[in-house]
């Protein structure tokens, strides 16, 4: 006479879990392509001697955070406030914080 609401709920949960499972499987399936891409990047890092990911190209210390030192953000001015938006996302590297 009427479908049960709890069945809807369980179905909803099941669909979501299935979606997550599908994503997981998708990862496994495209693993090959992803591995190739990773390998390519790794090889390029090795070949060119790269030290950083190209994520933020607006400032020197955001483009190469691993190469930056504590002074780099202040090279423009001793009391330079953070004026690059990506600086708010990237904190200073750990090895600079502890020293």
């Amino acid at each position, binding site marked *: 006479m009427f479908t*049960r609401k709890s069945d809807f709920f369980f179905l909803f949960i099941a669909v979501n879990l299935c979606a997550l499972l599908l994503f997981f499987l998708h990862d496994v399936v495209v693993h090959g392509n992803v591995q190739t891409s*990773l390998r390519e990047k*790794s090889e*390029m890092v090795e070949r060119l*001697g790269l030290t950083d*990911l190209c994520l933020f190209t*607006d400032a020197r210390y955001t*483009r190469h955070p*691993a190469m930056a030192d504590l002074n780099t953000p202040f090279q423009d001015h001793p009391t330079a406030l953070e004026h690059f938006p990506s600086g708010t996302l990237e904190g200073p590297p750990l090895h600079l914080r502890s020293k």
Partner: protein
Amino acid sequence: MRLLNRQRNIIDFTLSSLLRRKRKNTALVLVYTLVVFGLASVIFSTQALKHEACSILQKSPEVVIQRVVAGRQELIPASYIDKVKDIRGVQSAQGRFWGYYYDSTVGANYTLMVSNEPSGAEGSMVIGKGVARTLHAEKGDIVPFRAYDGSIVTLQVGYILSVQSELVSSDLVLLTENDFRQITGVPKGAFTDIAVMARNPKELTIIAEKIRRLFPDTRPIIKDDILRTYETIFDWRGGILLVILAGAMLAFVILAWDKASGLSSEERKEIGILKGIGWETSDVILMKFWEGVVISLSSFLLGCVFAYVHIFFASSALFEPVLKGWSVLYPQFRLKPYIDPLQIATLFSLTVIPYTVATIIPSWRAATMDPDSVMRL
């Protein structure tokens, strides 16, 4: 079976009860999902980036020696290289040329780098996909560069680096040593820094120490430092992420507040009725439990599914303006999906547990009282 039926029955009633205030509860689920979506998106993207960085950068130089003058990075003399090679444990030491070039026509920064890529041909360069996009350049195109002395140096695009490698190569301009010197004015006998490979990777700290003693004006950076940079990038403890986290916490508290602030008299009366018609305290508590779970679990799952699609299929489309910042050149990349179970478990706990508890606790007293007294209240 009986247990399952009991849950199904109670969930039926819970859902009917929630559907009585359709608009309010739909809005609640929507907002909740949005918060989970935002938080989960941040978690997925930062974790995946960190993970990918750590695996890709395993092959980066083991030690990079920078020269520091008056606190600023300066060019390093070529004469340092031979002395570094003599240090015990050093397998090889090479001078590197790299720097930045600001293209005023488009407002973009490129990373200039000398490598063997363009097969040594003068006047030829290899560019990253991001550079190609910014300049609308194709293979064979001629691109002018403004040199340090005001003159123009033209380079021809030899080929464009692949899309797959954009995460590391998007803004690269690879050229010959001569072309690099022509554009940047770096004199002969100087390098940007020195890349060192060691025989035994475990000795990096010792080698770095030796380099520092040998050349006190240098700053050696070992590979561990490079990797750790990316482990702590996007740290929760600072910057915009802290704000996001605080905002999300606040949102969870506010959403749970409505529940936690107590039962309305109508709700209390209903609990009394349920008890009067034969529901036990545990049944009432179970119903409240499911009431909390239905809302929070649905939001959690929906938020996570959408976040996954957003980050790994749509390449963090919504975050692009934030991540791009003031960069004109922004790499396009598909992250390798990586989920940190611990962070997801934490998100789950934050999403589901407080809300469910906030739903159950206020009902506890009413659920345990005699139905008679509850109905009189």
